[in-house]
């Protein structure tokens, strides 16, 4: 069976170069590798898409905080379900300050005795307007957009951060 002498590689059918100096073997190799590459890239993309959920069953990012009269003047109220502080200043402005520490995402706590917001994880401390006093936190606590609904309740949108000072005057 194997007695017939094999043709020398140079004279194999696919190995004679055509007009452009490309052999049939090279051409097929490149086509195959190209097709596999495109298929591989496509698979990677659709797999990544598969792993990014389109519907999330997470708490709504916009919520009603209730009637403004619920919050006394010069007070900080922590809303546990939303992890937001509703701050009402002496002049009657309302601010919604995030309770999530900007360092690594722990939930901070309002300490009325020191008038500070303190993080239990790594000791960052903030003022009631969210500015940093000390600690590893790189940024002040963000302020969320706070508006008044048609029926007179505070509405906070956690997806929309605003500059500190852009509070709501009621």
């Amino acid at each position, binding site marked *: 069976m194997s007695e017939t002498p094999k043709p020398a590689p140079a004279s194999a059918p696919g190995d004679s170069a055509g007009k452009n100096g490309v052999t049939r073997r090279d051409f097929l190799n490149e086509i195959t590798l190209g097709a596999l590459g495109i298929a591989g890239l496509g698979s990677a993309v659709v797999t*990544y898409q598969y*792993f*990014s959920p389109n519907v*999330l*069953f*997470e708490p709504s990012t916009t919520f009603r905080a209730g009637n403004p009269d619920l919050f006394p003047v010069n007070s900080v109220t922590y809303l546990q379900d939303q992890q937001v502080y509703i701050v009402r200043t002496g002049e009657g402005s309302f601010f919604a300050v995030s309770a999530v520490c900007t360092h*690594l*995402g*722990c939930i901070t706590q309002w300490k009325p005795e020191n008038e500070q917001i303190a993080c239990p994880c790594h000791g960052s401390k903030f003022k009631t307007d969210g500015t940093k006093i000390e600690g590893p936190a790189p940024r002040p606590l963000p302020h969320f957009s706070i508006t008044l609904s048609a029926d007179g309740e505070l509405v906070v949108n956690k997806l929309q951060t605003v500059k500190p000072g852009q509070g709501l005057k009621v």
Partner: protein
Amino acid sequence: MAATFQQGFERLRATRVWKSIFRRGPALTNRTRSLAVFGNLFLHWLPVKVREKSLRVRASYYLGSISFLLFIVLTVTGLLLMFYYHPAAPQAYRDMKDLRFVVSNGVFLRNMHRFAAHLMVLLVFWHMFHVFYRGGYKPPHEFNWVVGVILLLVTLFLSYTGYLLPWDQLAFWAITVGSNIISAMPFIGNKVRFTLLGGNLVGENALLRFYVLHCVVLPLIAIFFIAVHFWRVQKDGGLTVRPDDDRKE
């Protein structure tokens, strides 16, 4: 007694069944012994010959072998724990509590898994330092050093993904903090965090993803690289030995 046992064993090795399984009869010469190792899937990645020095405690403290033994312990205990664990909120926490207080010997298995996991991280680090200080990363061991670093990372990822599974406060906040560290990666950090957690916060999706990573994906990666690691130890000429390895204390 020992002689008859020996005789029985020799007779067993001459049977057709033995030869069919191991592909050869008694290995009585160095050549046939070597061939017996080469021709066996489970032995072929071990060296046929080792230097006596490299077997001394001083040469390795058996840190790699103990790490591998702990990996086996973790696989077996983890597999057993899986029979009582649902990766769903809040059932996961209840299952963990059941394993501790209701299931027979559950607390033993859980603690064994827990302590073996802590020990494995410790041992793998110790192994790395030991190899480093002995210069075990130098040629021709560079590739195996890199494989070792991959195995260290896989061990840490296994530890991290397993951390979430009890679904208690510690687990929740550890993964919250850890995933925020991931999001500090430039440009892709937030995307990686979102994909890893399957959402914006540590919830049901995150628990299931970490469970699959912990129980299937990472162990498979670990087994693959452990196989390469062991095989390369042999191909690179065995453990690094130093002149003072057989010194008597």
